């Protein structure tokens, strides 16, 4: 493992708040998680629900503080940083939530939603923020005239595009997508996957794609880590891992994915 990796995670763990959490993990949401990721790559994080994926994502994106361990982004330690430094780091890592619809304030217009991060971080004046919002919406493949519409008027796929446009507002380097593609039609899923690939190329983005669906992740991610019971049970390059799954959990996920793929099942 290289020390000059873009993202490096070492021995990261987080306990549940006192008195909660499943017994089998002894009160830990996840523990002992270490991984490395190079810039411009995509890591797929898969595993059954309740495996600690979302909590890990929240720790990586500076939402929740880990109980132990360290996260470094380009050699800068995330959780050891001071307040001002952390505010800057926060802009470089963006998390897109499980349900994009709930993540958009129904009272805001699309333009306001996309420009909100700029407003919060006080970047530019109102005029430049509006311009940047229009730019971002175009980048995410939304029609130019949509800026005045309210969030409720958009379809599921468009809402996902809005969430992506908003996440890009602060020029992040790392984008964490937590089940962001689940719950969409297959054709729309494909469109969003294309958009993500396109953006990765243009902006040199790094992705962590979280899903319970190994099949979905396999198409996009170069590397895959399988998480179960609060720790990473198996990881490696995607093609290798899919060809020779070692851990029973990985096999189970693979079977489930094959059963769902048209023509792949018995």
């Amino acid at each position, binding site marked *: 493992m290289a020390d000059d990796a873009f993202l490096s995670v070492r021995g990261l763990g987080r306990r549940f708040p006192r008195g909660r959490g499943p017994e089998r993990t002894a009160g830990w949401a996840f523990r002992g998680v270490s991984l490395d990721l190079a810039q411009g790559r995509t890591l797929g994080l898969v595993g059954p629900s309740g495996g600690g994926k979302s909590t890990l994502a929240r720790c990586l*994106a*500076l*939402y929740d503080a880990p109980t132990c361990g360290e996260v470094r982004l380009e050699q800068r330690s995330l959780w050891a940083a001071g307040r001002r430094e952390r*505010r800057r780091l*926060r*802009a470089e890592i*963006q*998390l897109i*939530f499980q*349900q*994009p*619809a*709930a*993540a*958009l*304030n129904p*009272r805001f217009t699309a333009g306001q939603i996309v420009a*909100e*991060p700029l407003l*919060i*971080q006080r970047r530019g004046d109102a005029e430049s923020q509006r311009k940047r919002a229009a730019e971002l919406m175009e980048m995410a493949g939304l029609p130019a005239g949509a800026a005045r519409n309210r969030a409720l008027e958009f379809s599921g796929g468009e809402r996902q595009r809005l*969430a992506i446009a*908003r996440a890009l*507002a*602060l020029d992040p380097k790392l984008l964490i997508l937590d089940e962001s593609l689940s719950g969409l039609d297959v054709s729309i899923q494909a469109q969003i996957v294309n958009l993500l690939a396109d953006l990765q190329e243009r902006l040199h983005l790094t992705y962590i794609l979280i899903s319970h669906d190994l099949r979905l992740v396999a198409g996009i991610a170069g590397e895959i880590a399988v998480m179960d019971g609060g720790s990473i049970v198996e990881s490696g390059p995607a093609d290798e891992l899919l060809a020779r799954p070692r851990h029973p959990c990985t096999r189970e996920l693979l079977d489930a994915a094959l059963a769902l793929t048209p023509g792949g099942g018995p």
Partner: protein
Amino acid sequence: MAERTKIRSALAFLAALHAAVALAGFLAPYGFADQRRDYPYAPPARLRFLDASGRFHLRPFVYGLAPDGAGGYREDTAGAYPVRFLFHQRLFGVDEPGTIFLCGSDGYGRDVFSRVLYGGQTSLVTGLAAAFVSLSLGLALGIAAGFYGGWLDRLIMRGGELAMALPWLYLLLAVRAFLPLHIGAPEAFALLVAIIGGSGWVRPARLIRGVALSARERGYVEAARGFGASDAYLIRRHLLPMTLGVALTQATVLIPRYVLAEIALSFLGLGIGEPAPSWGNMLAEARQYHALVSHPWMLAPAVAAFPILLAYLILADALMERQREGG
């Protein structure tokens, strides 16, 4: 749709009543302190269109009043005073020495109708201002409790539970008891607003806490936090707009209740003092009920409060119904 019509008509009706009270200086024929010592407890004036000889007058007129020898009055047909409109910068009035007491006069010979209009200013402004105080407190405490949670939440909510179980009128009197008995009208007003408003924050705070609690879990609040938003930003941009509906509905519940509280406190002699009128201190005269039995028009301020309370009640019901339907 029915709710919408109800809300609109109640609002229009309330606006008209409030405007009438606000324009007391123009609509009332007399000032609130104008005394006609020679006409105490005069009965309500009768507007007439037909004179003694049965002739019709387009312009209404009133007869003068003369003592009937039994402590009351009879109309003196010798002197007729036509009602003059836009008279001395007021909407209407009659020439001296005639009088036009539409709702009779009180023990000092002051016009009850005029005083009801002027007194409404005190009572309604007290209600509005106290509701503003309660809602501000309720918003601040409710948002603090719901948004921050933890011990702060427990402290505020436990305090609220206790405050709700207290007999509020006893509490108001107790607080009022610590202050000097005789204070000026502005101080009395400020005090009244603070006491009444400070006692009613619990219900709005509870409801607003509920909204804030659910807001904290919303994805967009989480997302904004992820962009580095401060608590102040989250509260201002996301939470406050969400609580607005609840706050407005609560205002329509609180205002009439506080108008009543002002009436009760001033009635007990602990509100605004004479000569400034308020509905409460006007009713205080009715405590001498033997006077009231022969001068029922002294109840006019309580009767005036009734349509306002009813309109607020209808408005509040309709708003709550709409909120329940709209989710």
